[in-house]
């Protein structure tokens, strides 16, 4: 098949014409990252900086109230405007990065962790027990898929009650079935590969085969997908907060800011738009990077 330039897209947006549209003289093994991918990586770097050292980007105190400044629209002093207590939203968005990214990371870690355990459990067993485990996990994944997206997260919160930790747990659990399905297929494929067959013939113990051969190969695609997943997890966690089920309002966390801004949407739009924009930027950057990584993985093969 002829390779149409720029098609297996992850990158979009304004691209200088002819940057990498001309047919390459030799097959490039490592395609150069597009400007959009570079921008996405830079944005993620900025987000990490904001998470690690928020004081560098926003020296003010995110919790100090100044009632006289309440509900000021965006200005030079407050680029994102101020909230109902006169706290600068730029400061609060920057200081909220750490908490929001942490929730996204923890939820993704929980989701991938559970997914790997379920996927490996279903793909590894031998004989009747193995088949039963595989069928059981397969059914469980199917059942959890019937409560798609936020639904499973909402059902979990119905039992745990609202809060930042329950929301993280709920998002993690809600993403687990997706990862489990991928690991399950991957383990099943790797198990049947010649590499594993040879290791078994050479007399390697099942544990060695699992740790040295099956797991690394099954986990590689999950690691790439997790890059995409962090953005999704941040979106879901902030959606739960927006609905009043995540972090409670006084905390400088994006979801909590969104929940607080909801009441004032008609009069102070900046209270919702800017914390939400932070979520959008995080999600878009992680999507672009995740897709670039996926493409690289499939192309290097």
């Amino acid at each position, binding site marked *: 098949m002829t390779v149409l330039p720029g098609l297996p897209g992850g990158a979009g947006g304004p691209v200088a014409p002819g940057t990498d549209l001309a047919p390459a003289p030799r097959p490039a093994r490592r395609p150069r990252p597009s400007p959009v991918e570079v921008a996405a990586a830079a944005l993620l770097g900025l987000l990490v900086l904001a998470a690690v050292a928020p004081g560098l980007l926003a020296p003010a105190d995110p919790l100090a109230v100044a009632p006289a400044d309440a509900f000021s629209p965006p200005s030079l002093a407050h680029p994102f405007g101020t909230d109902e207590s006169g706290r600068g939203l730029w400061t609060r968005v920057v200081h909220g990065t750490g908490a929001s990214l942490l929730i996204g990371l923890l939820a993704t870690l929980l989701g991938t962790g559970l997914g790997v355990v379920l996927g490996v459990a279903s793909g590894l067993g031998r004989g009747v027990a193995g088949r039963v485990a595989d069928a059981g996990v397969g059914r469980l994944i199917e059942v959890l898929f019937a409560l798609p997206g936020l639904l499973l997260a909402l059902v979990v919160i*119905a039992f745990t009650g609202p809060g930042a930790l329950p929301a993280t747990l709920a998002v993690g659990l809600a993403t687990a079935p997706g990862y489990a399905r991928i690991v399950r297929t991957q383990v099943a494929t790797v198990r049947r590969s010649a590499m594993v067959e040879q290791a078994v013939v050479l007399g390697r113990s099942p544990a060695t085969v699992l740790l040295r051969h099956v797991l690394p190969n099954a986990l590689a695609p999950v690691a790439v997908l997790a890059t995409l997943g962090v953005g999704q997890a941040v979106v879901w966690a*902030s959606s739960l907060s927006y609905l009043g089920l995540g972090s409670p309002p006084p905390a400088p966390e994006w979801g909590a800011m969104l929940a607080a801004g909801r009441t004032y949407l008609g009069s102070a739009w900046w209270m919702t738009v800017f914390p939400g924009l932070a*979520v959008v930027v995080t999600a878009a950057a992680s999507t672009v990077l995740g897709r670039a990584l996926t493409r690289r993985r499939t192309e290097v093969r």
Partner: protein
Amino acid sequence: MTVDAPPAPARARRDPRPALRWLVGRAVGGVLVLWAVATLIFFAVRLVPGDPAEAILGGPGSQASDEALALVREQYGLDRPLVVQYLAQLGRLATGDLGSSYSLRVDVADLLLAQLPGTLVLAAAALVVAWALALAGAWWASRSGPVGARVSSGLEVLASSLPQFWLASVLIVVFSTELGWFPPVSTGTPLGLVLPVVTLAVPVAGFLGQVTRDSLLEASAAPFALSARARGETPGGLFARHLLRHAALPGLALSGWAFGSLLSGAVVVESVFARPGLGRTLLQAVTLRDVPLVTGVALASALAYVVVVALGDLAERLVDPRRRTP
């Protein structure tokens, strides 16, 4: 095999058995899914610390008297062994009795039936708009070369990473507060439906657009497209008669996923636009920790998921002749 076999193909096509087998298989799978969802929720309720009787009376804050708690325990059979309670619950569910809501004191089944049409209209309209956007975008991208492909790919990434609550807020600020074109809350008029439908449709269109565009480009590079063009097929005719089927297939295979996205979107959209519907009912149930209502919505959505996936499978078979022969 025998030589004098009757001309089978003509009869085999009318043979109802594969269709029947498909239907029975789907139905059995669906019942299993519903049973599993009911079971998971039943035991999750018992695992969570806290007294179920207290939850029925309005949670720990209600300070219910011991007599009231004892009465509720007896009334709801909470003093019986767990297995008996579980079987009784399954028996009730099997007859379509979802119990009555703790918080609203009304029959859950009646409540869900009353809320269903609002969500159904919203989701169906959003699905149509999303498909229209995805197909239009894919068609435009396939006609406008590499730059178009890049632009539409960027738009798709953006659309699919927009959180619905944020999109809804921005749309309200721009089109209700500033321009005053559409009402910020759903009023039941067609005009009030515009912003909720757009909010729900855009992220779904982003995802559908990605897969649709990929398969459309693959199809337009295929030999059959070249030969159709050589026969003098116009670009529009080529798209409508030959490429559309290929473009739609991966999107149809994603119908289960699209349903999930629409339903979780409905929770957000119905709550932002104050629209009555299943999503808002679920949110209310979760906030008030109303177990029968949560169970009801979960079962209803699992049932709808099973039906939607089956319909998606059916649509794939209708669109793709290769999948029709058993």
